[in-house]
């Protein structure tokens, strides 16, 4: 997946983000830009701060310092507004014009609306991202209903189309997720997240915890979806094979800091930092 995305507009501007639970526990002084249509992989060993950074980027956890700026092109309507707009008091009323949102300055209401309506989040454990008590169809339809879709027949048709797209049997639309295998649950979570065509998707180890053969098929499917929908993705993984397959660009983390960043193939084939070299070689040796 080589795609120099630099000429596309900046979607996410991450400025000097720090979130520390203790010395070297968390993430520190992280600075980067994500361009529209780009898949950025965050790699590093367990405990290096990948998930912490992702939570901050996704608006789930405020940083100790730094800013996350989300830019949408100025002619786009602000979807995040529809959920809350009329009841929110002033303060940030000029934002349509500037079309750049400072994630932790806009207030929880709009931050949550953003995540619900315009972004997507795929958890490692599908149980964290699914409603286990309701059917597959209801899971896929929820974000559409939150956006105001009120036609049962259409919701159902969309649900079935998405099940087909993620290679689930549409005949199981009324089945509860708990009757699905782990790999199927992960497909369902992905369908549920992508059904609203989010502009930006965060994924934390989306293939973790799955059998190798199941992983391979899921990866293949994700790759196709990313290309077809032109998704912009921040992908956390400790698996360099996953990173190689999905990410255009990589950021290598260690002890909460970024040690190296660059195009995926460049980093994996010619790592500069000694930690990256170690990481790459430990993967290459079986």
């Amino acid at each position, binding site marked *: 997946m080589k795609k120099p995305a630099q000429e596309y507009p900046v979607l996410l501007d991450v400025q000097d983000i720090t979130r520390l639970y203790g010395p070297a526990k968390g993430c520190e002084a992280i600075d980067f830009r994500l361009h529209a249509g780009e898949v950025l992989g965050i790699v590093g060993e367990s405990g290096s701060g990948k998930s912490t950074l992702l939570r901050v980027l996704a608006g789930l956890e405020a940083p100790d310092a730094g800013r996350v700026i989300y830019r949408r092109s100025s002619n786009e309507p602000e979807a995040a507004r529809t*959920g809350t707009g009329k009841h929110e008091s002033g303060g940030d009323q000029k934002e349509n014009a500037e079309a750049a949102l400072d994630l932790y300055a806009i207030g929880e209401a709009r931050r949550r609306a953003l995540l619900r309506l315009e972004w997507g989040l795929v958890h490692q454990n599908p149980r964290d991202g699914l409603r286990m008590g309701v059917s597959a169809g*209801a899971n896929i*339809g*929820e974000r559409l*209903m939150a956006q105001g879709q009120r036609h049962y027949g259409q919701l159902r048709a969309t649900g079935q189309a998405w099940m087909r797209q993620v290679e689930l049997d549409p005949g199981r639309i009324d089945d509860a997720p708990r009757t699905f295998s782990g790999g199927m649950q992960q497909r369902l979570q992905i369908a549920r997240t992508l059904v609203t065509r989010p502009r930006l998707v965060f994924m934390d180890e989306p293939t973790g915890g799955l059998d190798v053969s199941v992983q391979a098929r899921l990866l293949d499917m994700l790759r196709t979806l990313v290309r077809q929908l032109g998704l912009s993705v921040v992908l956390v993984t400790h698996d360099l094979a996953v990173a190689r397959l999905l990410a255009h660009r990589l950021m290598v983390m260690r002890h909460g800091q970024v040690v190296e960043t660059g195009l995926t193939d460049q980093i994996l084939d010619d790592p500069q930092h000694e930690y990256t070299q170690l990481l790459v070689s430990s993967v290459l040796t079986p």
Partner: protein
Amino acid sequence: MDGYNFAYLDEQTKRMIHRALLKAVAIPGYQVPFGGREMPMPYGWGTGGVQLTASILGADDILKVIDQGADDTTNAVSIRHFFQRVAGVETTTATTAADVIQTRHRIPETPLRAGQILVFQVPIPEPLRFIEPSEQETRLMHALEEYGVMHVKLYEDIARYGHIATTYAYPVKVDGRYVMDPSPIPKFDNPKLDGNPALMLFGAGREKRLYAIPPYTPVESLDFEDHPFEIQRWEHSCALCGSDRSYLDEVITDDKGGRMFVCSDTDYCQTRRGDVA
């Protein structure tokens, strides 16, 4: 009456409830917390409704109390006696004669008029509770209008039963803003919430919440375009008064399996029989 303030509650408690009620009326459908008092009856007996009635009742008001539409159940009778004793107010079974009607489960069939107040006893005030156990989170969901899950529930009904199977406590949206649980009334009564000339107050004793639908407020039952909201219908008419538009209860008439359908609203049924006779 010795030892009791008028209508049992002390004036300070009443003032506190009045303040909460003013807020509730100002923000239709919004749940206002109030510092509820212990009442001399168990929660299941409608202490939330009793506290609201006690704080709004005036000495000249005429009170009606119904339970499942009937004036003569144990619950209705004991609440009525309670207010006769602690407030000395006049009581009635006639919907048209009442100034204040405390109810559990039903809205009278006889249309209410401006100036009347209907007080509901509410067991579970939070419509989002089924999906979210945390009170802090549900308050946030209301504040942000995160109501997608309400339709998830209705979707699931249709997927499972082919139609929206929710028949009681059917969720509504009040004045285009707050999703509200109309409490244990049958969905048959939901249309009566919409634009009603009477003031409707809801009190939950255990959870210490109250909310309101002011007169003439638009109230809409949640549904889908292709599965619109519908009320219950019966093939029968009332076996006693012949009404074909009231909410019917099935009653057993003998021990040989004899049954009939009669109005759940006893005052409505009796009045009609009086009219017919």
